[in-house]
């Protein structure tokens, strides 16, 4: 188990490093993904003062690892194959990083939101999305998170991130998102 964890951790760090370089080349795409996946929050306007330009990401200042784009913890989406709830190899570093974070912060809660593409019954898709969320939670529990820390819910096909009716959109929507209370 320890060896597996070390390997997983190393992968996680690697993933984090590679994501850093990606981020520098294209910060917008990383940010966009996070923003679209999180709930529409009612944040107050940045400033009420005179005409100012504030291009900097305020999250970077906070030092919160969950919002630091260079940290794997800022990555929140796990994608699935059609009719599948298996967490693919490429997303295991992400899942294990969040599991470790929950393990180290026992008071921290998280919601896993399952999603599906638009095809088929809305209610059956809701159950399929739930299955994806549950699969992510189960993996996190194996990696040290506790059941009480994670609530799994499903949006089914109701909150698609991509609105098209094509394979690219469907793939984008077969997804589980990790959401923390203060996101």
């Amino acid at each position, binding site marked *: 188990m320890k060896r597996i964890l070390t390997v997983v951790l190393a992968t996680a760090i690697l993933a984090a490093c590679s994501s850093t370089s990606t981020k520098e080349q294209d910060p917008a795409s990383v940010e966009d993904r996070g923003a679209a996946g999180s709930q529409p929050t009612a944040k107050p306007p940045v400033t009420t003062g005179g005409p100012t330009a504030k291009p900097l990401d305020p999250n970077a200042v906070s030092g919160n690892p969950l919002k630091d784009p260079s940290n794997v913890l800022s990555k929140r989406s796990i994608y699935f194959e059609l009719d599948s709830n298996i967490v693919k190899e490429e997303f295991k570093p992400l899942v294990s990083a969040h599991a470790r974070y929950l393990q180290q912060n026992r008071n921290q809660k998280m919601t896993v939101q399952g999603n599906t593409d638009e095809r088929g019954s809305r*209610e*059956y898709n809701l159950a399929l999305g739930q299955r994806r969320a549950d699969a992510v939670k189960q993996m996190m529990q194996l990696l040290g998170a506790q059941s009480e820390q994670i609530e799994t819910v499903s949006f089914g096909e109701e909150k698609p991130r991509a609105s098209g*009716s094509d394979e690219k959109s469907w793939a984008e929507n077969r997804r589980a998102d990790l959401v923390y209370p203060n996101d």
Partner: protein
Amino acid sequence: MKNLKTILLPFLLSLGLFLLAQAASAQLRIEVVGGGATQIPVAIVPFRAEEGLAQRLTPVVAADLARSGLFKIVDAGGMNPVPHEPEQVNYAQWRARGADAVVIGAVTKAPDGRYDIRFRVMDAVKQTQIAGFVYFATESQLRLTAHKIADVIYEKLTGDTGVFATRITYVVKRGSRYELNVADADGFGAQSVLASNEPIISPAWSPEGTRLAYVSFEQKKPVVYVQSLTTGSRQAVAAFRGSNSAPAWSPDGKQLAVTLTRDGGSQLFLINSDGSGAPRRLTQSAAIDTEANFSPDGQSILFTSDRGGGPQIYRIPVGGGGAPQRVTFEGRYNVSARHSPDGKSFTFIQRNGGRFNVAVQDFATRQVQVLTEGGVDESPSFAPNNKIILYATVVGGRGILAAVSSDGRIKQRFTADVGDAREPAWSPVVNK
């Protein structure tokens, strides 16, 4: 036949335009595709003194009957005198126009300010009265009264219950806004009973037709609510940890079958419809069990389960005792079952290749009939007379409501003015 069409078409067209102009607030418009094998020719004579009403009655009656696909509306113009009483009916002339039945009537203002509306259905062949009723209605009840008159005509001439005086509910998505709407069965008088920035799905009518159960995502997860249509008050009745969805009313209105994930997986539970007490678990599987629907006698529940691999329809006794029995065997994807009100069959969605279609299966013979040929049909439900199935589909990239007769012959489309319409459900017949 050709002659009739040329007579009918301008009539129906002018009727349609009239209806549109009358109700600027109307949000759904119905278009009929196809027709019944035999159509009953009926003449609807404008009622005496109805032209002064805020809502004329006979155009609504004629539109209801025409839309059902089971009637030919015979031209009633140019009769001299215009008949309003039985002795004024010239049967020979109506027979010459091909009418089997003639509807006549008159409106007078009663002393209490309401309208006295009396009408008769006359048999043009036997030259006798088939039915005659009087209604007292306020101005705001005129449209409903017209639907009730159409129900009487429909029932007397076809032998089946009319459903023109019933209502439908559905969800409209406009941009990022969701509205739960209730409208008359002809799509008029649509009212929004709930508006939200988060999705609303799975509305279900209570058996007495005064409450709706539905799933709202306003708490950032699916929660089941029950809302009164008379008071507007609403209550979360299933808001347990995890997802709460797919509400189905018991025939006595006291319980709901719901899908909960609080114990892991998606499983069926029974809860009280007032939210009291603890849920009672109905299914025990490691699979998905969802989309419950009570049989009309309340003894059993149909539901969707993938315990055998892909999703299929199963049936389970409500009282416990007895394992779920699989009831669909054709195809690898059968979902969203809803009983017919007579309990003899159920409608559901069947996937054929990449297409999702409305189908009906007879309980006794197990025979399946696929009723639609569209590609993305969803959420079918029966009208309370067993004759029509309302469902959601997509035409030109937009969600619309559609209906098909349970024999597949007559199809209707409800066109919404704006937005995507989905998740329809037909109300029960409410006796007032």
